[in-house]
């Protein structure tokens, strides 16, 4: 039985194509995936991402717990700040990639992936034993909407008295949107300006309808997970379960910047050791030089030898090229290296390029 968000009926009414994503019935597209992608790049898009999980961490040992379980130096965060990071196991393998919201020294919110929510919760609870801290999984009560794109601020501003211009990138405020109290951060998973909204399920349909209605004048479209995938891939953002997982470390992925070695955390020793011994593989971005779309799992070759595998691959609507992410043997990760990707029976040439593929000008 698939789980449903509070907006499930709305998605069906809009004629969305629904798929199983991490155990949730989610819209993959409404009318046209490429148009939805372009709406976000050029105007605005609205995503229901309520399948994602949220934990509230409170108590005098909140910082101690988060220092232990996440890769970020929590002590450096300011109130109202948003930070990306990872949770590692003792071996340095990535349990999940997360977003951390700091309300105060004694209150944080962690936003986690849908499929990993139960495992993350158990892991964090286990690490909290003996600490003065409470970990609440509020995922089932929360709706999360992302409104993304150059017009996102203008649209959202119509629904609140708070001056959204004052929210800096990777910061958040608690305010009311259309009278509903919520946390809104200027952040997202698309590479565009935009906001992530967290609020109670009971207001889900009301807020969704208001944003669609106001957004209409600005060319906002409801967007599915399909567009979300091409948008995030263009920005070189990783997707858990594809580009990162328990068998890869943040150093092998491009999450080194989110790892602080100046504090203690679970997995640190293993990562330090890996750093010292040297990496054996590295996540890279590539673009196809010949015809073909690389897909998750396709093998990567160099000089007739298997040197890695693709983890994500899409046609990029913005760049008009086929792009992808994958791991290659360390040393082959350098820019402009020509690799081959096995697509069914053929080897197709690709070139390693700089990430992100797309950056907002």
């Amino acid at each position: 039985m698939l789980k449903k968000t509070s907006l499930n009926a709305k998605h069906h009414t809009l004629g969305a194509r629904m798929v199983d994503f991490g155990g949730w019935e989610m819209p993959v597209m409404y009318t046209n995936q490429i148009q939805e992608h372009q709406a976000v790049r050029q105007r605005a898009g609205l995503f229901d991402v309520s399948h994602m999980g949220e934990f509230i961490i409170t108590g005098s040992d909140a910082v101690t717990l988060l220092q232990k379980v996440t890769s970020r130096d929590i002590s450096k965060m300011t109130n109202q700040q948003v930070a990306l990071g990872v949770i590692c196991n003792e071996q340095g393998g990535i349990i999940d990639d997360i977003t951390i919201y700091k309300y105060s020294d004694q209150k944080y919110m962690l936003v986690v992936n849908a499929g990993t929510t139960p495992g993350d919760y158990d892991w964090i609870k286990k690490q909290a034993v003996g600490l003065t801290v409470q970990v609440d999984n509020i995922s089932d009560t929360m709706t999360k909407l992302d409104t993304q794109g150059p017009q996102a601020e203008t649209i959202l501003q119509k629904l609140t008295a708070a001056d959204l211009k004052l929210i800096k990138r990777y910061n958040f405020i608690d305010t009311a949107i259309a009278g509903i109290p919520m946390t809104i951060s200027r952040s997202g998973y698309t590479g565009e300006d935009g906001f992530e909204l967290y609020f109670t399920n009971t207001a889900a349909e009301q807020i969704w309808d208001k944003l669609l209605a106001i957004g209409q004048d600005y060319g906002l479209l409801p967007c599915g997970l399909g567009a979300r995938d091409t948008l995030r891939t263009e920005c070189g953002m990783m997707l858990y379960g594809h580009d990162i997982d328990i068998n890869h470390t943040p150093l092998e992925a491009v999450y080194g910047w989110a790892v602080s070695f100046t504090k203690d955390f679970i997995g640190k020793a293993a990562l330090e050791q890996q750093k010292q011994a040297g990496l054996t593989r590295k996540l890279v971005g590539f673009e196809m030089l010949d015809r073909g779309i690389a897909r998750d799992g396709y093998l990567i070759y160099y000089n007739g030898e298997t040197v890695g595998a693709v983890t994500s691959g899409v046609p990029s609507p913005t760049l008009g090229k086929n792009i992808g992410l994958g791991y290659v043997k360390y040393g082959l990760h350098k820019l402009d290296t020509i690799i081959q990707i096995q697509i069914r029976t053929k080897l197709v040439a690709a070139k390693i390029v700089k990430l992100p593929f797309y950056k907002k000008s």
Partner: protein
Amino acid sequence: MSEHKIQNDLYYNKDHEWVKIVGNEATVGISDYAQQLLTDVVFVELPDIGKIVKQFERACVVESVKSVSDVYAPVGGIVAAVNKALETTPEAVNTDPYGAGWIYKLSGVNAAETSNLMDAPAYKTFLDQDKAK
């Protein structure tokens, strides 16, 4: 999903390919239903000319943004021609599935194999049952 066009003079298989047979030659594409299901076709991997395919064997591949789908041979034969235009305009499979979106032609076709396929009315019934599921 909106209505699906079904063209009368064609045969269809359950994987939603269509075939038009003239003498011992056949033209193959995917049905309007299939293209709607796929959504935007962004890549067509055409079969090699001269490739021999048996009935219902995989002949080539079409890809949407999100998915890779096999295109089967509704009848057996030898690949005699491919629609090269799809290399630059794969979207023709969406916009004109029974016309400009044709994918490949077979020669050496045995027309008797159409007895394993559906004609237009039978395909319509098949789709109606599919939708009722």
